[in-house]
């Protein structure tokens, strides 16, 4: 279990409870049930208290938690017959973006998402979920295929942003993102998206410009990272708490602004504390979003998407 900085008091209590349990296992005569129970109760109360009102900056930390289920976990649990499709047919296959054919509740679909990796080796392989132009061009290819074969597209978003690298720029990062966003808007099949962790700027928009957008309770979606915003507007990257607050990047704020259509509740203490329950909840949300769109005519789906974005911004955050 990885603990976040603000969870440190919780780590202490849970650590103590764990120590006692280990002690009891090695010494069967000791009766410490009461003490352990007391500690567990204390830990739960603290957890509840910590997660009752998470500040936006804490939400960012939870959204980036390394133990949260990632794209790969969702695909493995929610989809069957997943058949990864690779490459942009131009330059390379981007491992930061997963995609392929799969069945979702028996229905064939195209699933695309950012994968961050779960340990040092896979994180490097996945480039921490930061796609290069090839990733967006692969997604464009897959969305186009889905469009031609009438398959709904499901995208799972979890990226700090597009990769800021020399090669990525030379190969047209901006153009790739712009075309991917355009492809999202063009396809005559349902496109539903879930932000499962971080929705980092343009890298997220390129996949999340769909008919419906759901966000996990502690996920974030923002034009810039709080650290980046703080260093530009506050000229001090340590002001990320203030920046996170000002940016209104939480799922709850995005729902109020009409950018997100629904918020998926997470287990107490965040998705990382009960990955299975989180994945199941995301599955239900995808099904409910899809069922409202499947069967609609291609034109109607394109119109629906356009309308959604053209009218966006009519609602602000109430004072």
């Amino acid at each position, binding site marked *: 279990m990885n603990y976040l900085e603000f969870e440190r008091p919780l780590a202490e209590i849970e650590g103590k409870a764990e120590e006692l349990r280990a002690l009891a296992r090695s010494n069967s005569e000791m009766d410490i049930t009461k003490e352990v129970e007391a500690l567990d109760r204390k830990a739960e109360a603290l957890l509840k208290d910590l997660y009752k009102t998470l500040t936006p900056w804490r939400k960012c930390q939870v959204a980036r938690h390394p133990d949260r289920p990632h794209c790969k976990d969702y695909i493995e649990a929610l989809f069957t017959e997943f058949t990864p499709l690779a490459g942009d047919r131009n330059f390379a296959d981007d491992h930061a973006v997963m995609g392929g054919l799969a069945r979702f509740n028996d229905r064939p679909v195209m699933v695309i998402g950012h994968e961050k990796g779960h340990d040092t080796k896979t994180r490097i392989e996945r480039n921490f979920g930061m796609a290069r132009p090839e990733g967006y061009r692969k997604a464009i290819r897959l969305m186009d295929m889905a469009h031609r074969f009438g398959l709904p597209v499901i995208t799972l978003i979890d990226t700090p942003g*597009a990769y800021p690298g020399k090669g990525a720029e030379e190969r047209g990062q901006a153009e790739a993102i712009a075309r991917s966003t355009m492809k999202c808007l063009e396809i005559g099949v349902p496109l539903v998206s879930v932000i499962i962790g971080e929705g980092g700027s343009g890298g997220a928009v390129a996949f999340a410009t769909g008919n419906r957008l759901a966000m996990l309770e502690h996920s974030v979606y923002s034009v810039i990272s709080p650290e980046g915003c703080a260093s530009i507007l506050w000229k001090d990257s340590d002001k990320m708490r203030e920046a996170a607050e000002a940016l209104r990047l939480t799922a709850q704020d995005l729902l109020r602004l009409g950018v997100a259509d629904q918020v998926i509740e997470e287990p107490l203490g965040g998705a990382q504390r009960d990955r299975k329950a989180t994945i199941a909840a995301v599955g239900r949300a995808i099904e409910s979003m899809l069922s409202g769109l499947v069967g609609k005519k291609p034109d109607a789906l394109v119109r629906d998407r356009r309308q959604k974005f053209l009218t966006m*911004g009519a609602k602000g955050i109430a004072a």
Partner: protein
Amino acid sequence: MNWISNYVRPTINSLFSRREVPENLWTKCGECGTMLFHREMAENLNVCGSCGHHMAITARARFKALFDGGVFVEIKVPDALADPLHFRDQKKYPDRLKAAQKASGEKEAMLVAEGEIGRTPIIAAAQDFSFMAGSMGMHVGNAIIAAAERAVKRKLPLVLFSAAGGARMQEGILSLMQMPRTTIAVQMLKEAGLPYIVVLTHPTTGGVTASYAMLGDVQIAEPNALICFAGPRVIEQTIREKLPEGFQRAEYLLDHGMLDRVTPRGKMRDELITIVRMLTGQSPVITGDLPGPAAPVAPEPEASAPAATPTGKA
């Protein structure tokens, strides 16, 4: 200490300082350091006469130079929600907006107009870098949509001049949502079969590059303009190495296949007229410099001189 140092010298000094040329009459070229007289600079569209460096130009000045006789009609942009997030950093967002409005005399960072270039009617939109770094917020999104809608309604091409540091952070996610919104505007033009020409000017970066500024039928840039998604500083921090000379500049992008052309500001208007007229199936533009009457004495180099004399009527 006498009356000379106490009285005469200050009087002389004040007389001379009053005669000093106001600073705003001269601008120093950021590239070569040449002092440029403001009137000459304006005539040269803010391009340094000695080194060719392209300095920023306001949307309005650009339009005045672009449209025939400097005549254009401004197209109204629907008002966006002011300060949707109640954003506050070290300053309140509305205060920043007011300061930018006061400094620039413009309402927002993008101007949309209808008019003729070389007798060719077009819709044009230009981003103003001097207004909060030209940043793309809801107004810029609305402006591009209004420009596209107008172009579709009037069946005219759209020429867009981009200049922006990126998305307007003070509008948070709603600024990011201008990426899909402006992309829809580009789609409208595409569906109506209308040309969409983007002129990228210094600098065009971030979410602006990753949406409408990279989706043109023809992509032209001004010389040496910085055009990128992630800025050079961010990249250097990430990869921890020095970037090559000219990286992310217009010429570099041209070499890497990201642009069609790099064209100096002074030649841009003619080039736009040529391209627009071909894409819309119109005859070549008649420049007005009709050759004089078949007078055999007319010397060769004079042929392109301004046709001020009414000899053409003969």
